């Protein structure tokens, strides 16, 4: 008997042409708390997904307690005493919380085909008490519950199998301080009981505090594993970012550089439950960064400014025409552009041709007499766009879903940049694209800035925000928590301090 619980050897996972995990070796000892660190897209969630059975490995092997292990589903992982709280798995929103705790494992309460509900609820309550979790209304359906409550249910579900290995993927960031403390205690307790825990969190200091060892991934590969004793966050960050942190593709100047003219004013924007009293101005030629954790409301700000939040209170005013933006239609016709975060779901029509996607935002400006849209004219516009933005494709009639992520994003950005714009809202513009396209997008942003566009850059990647913005607004829990100008204060530590 060794004291190794899980041994992963030579794991590969591809999603299409992207390699999410490359030859990953990873082993966990019993009673160990292990952290997984890496930038977005470094493959840490993919690794955990394979261990927890959400997706299957392409090659390599996993050995659990000395036996080969290859789960088809999270349920099977649970049967192997692996408890999972990950982002991909949610709660069943149409079922009561108590049922969710035992989802997929209801047979233990079933007798003659009928589920003993009171036993189920009692058992669920017992689980919550046993692990010291925040009590939740067990009989209510999860649909309308807060994210924190949902996480509690997921935790209870993972813990109710009395796991030997517990996987926690970004659990803490949606918890309040009380519950975080509770979770820390829980981790201590499980560790003392000889259980193994794997943690992913954005908060590196928290990770160093909690974990025994931290494994760093970069571009799908394991960079190394470090013991946490005396480990500094900086060292970790260096490992995460690696050699590619070269400043070449970010801006090299360290002073804010924009004109005095205010292009757009946002006054006291509030969207119930998401953002509250957010006010700011954007100037001509300015890149204004918005940064915060993923539930801080930064993405909602982008939507709200473009008039996509119908229940919004407050005003968004374009100063030049002193025009209030009340809906996206007004924004579209008055020189605003919005590049949403979810490229495939919200921005592009995946099953349509490139030309139709490319000319889509310019439909109003391309029409001739009798609102005639000349197919030839549209084609020319799209062909020019393909050439200008170096989009690799077989022709303007190719379907969008045949393009690579980077080329999709070029279509997505390019179709706005051919218009005469004043304000450009970019929500995570470099998500899911490779380094080359990333550099190209930053170059486009610099060009747009030089032309005098006001750019709102919304991103949860700090290096990007620091590298590109003139000013940055840090948000937390839907409110503005701090504002920095480009300059000496513009370093990651200071921003994180305000973010968390």
């Amino acid at each position, binding site marked *: 008997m060794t004291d190794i619980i899980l041994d992963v050897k030579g794991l590969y996972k591809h*999603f*299409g*042409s*992207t390699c999410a995990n490359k030859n990953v070796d990873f082993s966990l000892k019993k009673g160990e708390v292990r952290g997984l660190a890496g930038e977005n897209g470094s493959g840490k969630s993919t690794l955990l997904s394979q261990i927890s059975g959400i997706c299957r490995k392409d090659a390599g092997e996993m050995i659990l307690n000395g036996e080969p292990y290859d789960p088809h589903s999270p349920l099977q992982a649970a049967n192997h005493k692996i408890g999972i709280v990950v982002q991909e798995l949610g709660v069943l929103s149409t079922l009561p919380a108590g049922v969710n705790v035992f989802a997929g494992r209801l047979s233990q309460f079933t007798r003659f085909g009928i589920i003993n509900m009171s036993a189920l609820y009692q058992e669920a309550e017992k689980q919550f008490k046993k692990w010291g979790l925040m009590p939740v209304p067990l009989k209510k359906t999860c649909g309308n519950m807060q994210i924190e409550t949902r996480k509690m249910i997921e935790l209870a579900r993972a813990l109710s199998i009395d796991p030997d290995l517990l996987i926690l993927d970004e659990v803490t960031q949606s918890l309040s301080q009380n519950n975080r403390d509770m979770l820390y205690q829980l981790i201590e307790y499980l560790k003392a009981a000889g259980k193994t825990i794997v943690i992913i969190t954005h908060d590196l200091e928290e990770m160093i505090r909690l974990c025994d060892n931290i494994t760093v991934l970069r571009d799908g590969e394991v960079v190394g594993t470090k013991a946490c004793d005396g480990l500094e966050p900086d060292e970790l960050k260096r490992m995460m970012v690696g050699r590619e942190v070269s400043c070449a593709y970010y801006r090299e100047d360290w002073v804010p550089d924009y004109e005095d003219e205010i292009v757009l004013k946002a006054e006291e924007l509030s969207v119930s439950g998401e953002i509250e009293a957010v006010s700011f101005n954007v100037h001509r030629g300015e890149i204004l960064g918005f940064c915060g954790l993923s539930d801080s409301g930064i993405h909602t700000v982008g*939507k709200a400014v*473009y*008039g*996509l939040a119908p229940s919004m209170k407050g005003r968004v005013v374009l100063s030049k025409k002193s025009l209030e933006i009340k*809906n*996206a*239609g*007004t*924004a*579209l*016709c008055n020189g605003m552009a*919005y590049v*949403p975060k979810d490229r495939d*779901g*919200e*921005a*592009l*029509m*995946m*099953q*349509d*041709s490139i030309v*139709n996607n490319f000319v*889509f*935002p310019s*439909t*109003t400006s391309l*029409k001739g007499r*009798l*609102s*005639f*849209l*000349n*197919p030839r004219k549209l084609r020319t516009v799209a062909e020019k766009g393909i050439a200008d933005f170096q989009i690799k494709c*077989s022709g303007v*009639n*190719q*379907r969008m*879903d*045949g*393009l*690579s*992520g980077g080329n999709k994003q070029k279509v997505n950005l390019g179709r706005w940049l051919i218009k005469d714009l004043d304000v450009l809202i970019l929500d995570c513009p470099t998500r*899911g694209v490779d380094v080359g396209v990333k550099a190209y997008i930053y170059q486009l942003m610099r060009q747009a800035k030089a032309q005098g566009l006001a750019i709102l850059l919304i991103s949860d990647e700090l290096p990007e925000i620091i590298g590109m913005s003139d000013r940055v607004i840090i948000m937390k829990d839907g409110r503005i928590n701090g504002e920095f100008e480009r300059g000496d204060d513009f370093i990651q530590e200071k921003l994180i301090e305000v973010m968390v």
Partner: protein
Amino acid sequence: MKKERFELNKLTPFVSLIVMLLVFTVLTKGSMISPYNISMLIDQSVVLIIACCGTIFVSAQGRVDLSVGVNCAFSAVIGDLAYRATGSSLIMIVTALLVGVGIGLVNGMLISRFKVPSFMATLAILIGLRGIVNYIQSIASVNYASDVIMMLSDNQIKLPLLILIVVVFWYLFEYTSLGRYCKAIGENEVVAYSVGMPVGRSKIVAYALSGLTAAISCIFLIARLGGTSTTMGTFFEMKVMTAIYVGGVLVRGGSTAKMYKAILGAFIVMIIENGLKIMGYASSEVSEFVQGLLLMVILFLTVFFELRRQKVKKTAGQEA
């Protein structure tokens, strides 16, 4: 490979039209393509083609208008009442068209403002209005169409008018932003919304157009039947729907929706109906059975090819 399939989708309606024509020519021993029958066929298709011209706007959004048939009957009956009251054919036509558009607007409001699923809302309208139509017809005796309306049954007036209507709707659908918005909504409504397109308005306009064409077709139908009748427009909505889907438009709509597909689809449906009639299966249950089966098979094929194409794309290509 890729190119081939793209062409295939475009050619589907032509191929099925020719196949159907051949099949029924053989089955009816040639009487299908006799000059008399061909002219009959075109004559019968007019009403269906007109209705398809408007409904394609709704189908492009991936929605459905099941109230086409009842809208046709309702605007005919109301138009008839207006004619009795005033004696003017012009007023009758205007009333019928207004009623048609009005019902379309109600549909559109229900679907875009109140988010009622389109099949449910339009089906409810279908049931409800059919009741009112029955009521009106039970108290008012059957009326015969006026001479002005009857002029529409003359091919020399009818066909140019048909061509005019088709050209106008073709233009609207393929070459203006309205058609583009409708297709975009079918492709991905969230995208259309976040770009800033007038999504709600497009939905309402599409249903209004569908109502308008239903009303126009009702006038042609009156001219063909010589008056209003109690069974007018029953099952018409299914014919329109089948025509559009048989033409190769996917249920999700989007850029697969093309005007030529709807028109060819209308011909296919009429060929089947006409062929069955010549073969002596004029009863409604046989034609309903064949249409139901046809609808299922066509839907299955389109969904099947679409899914296979997506699967090929996914394994061949990019990140998930």
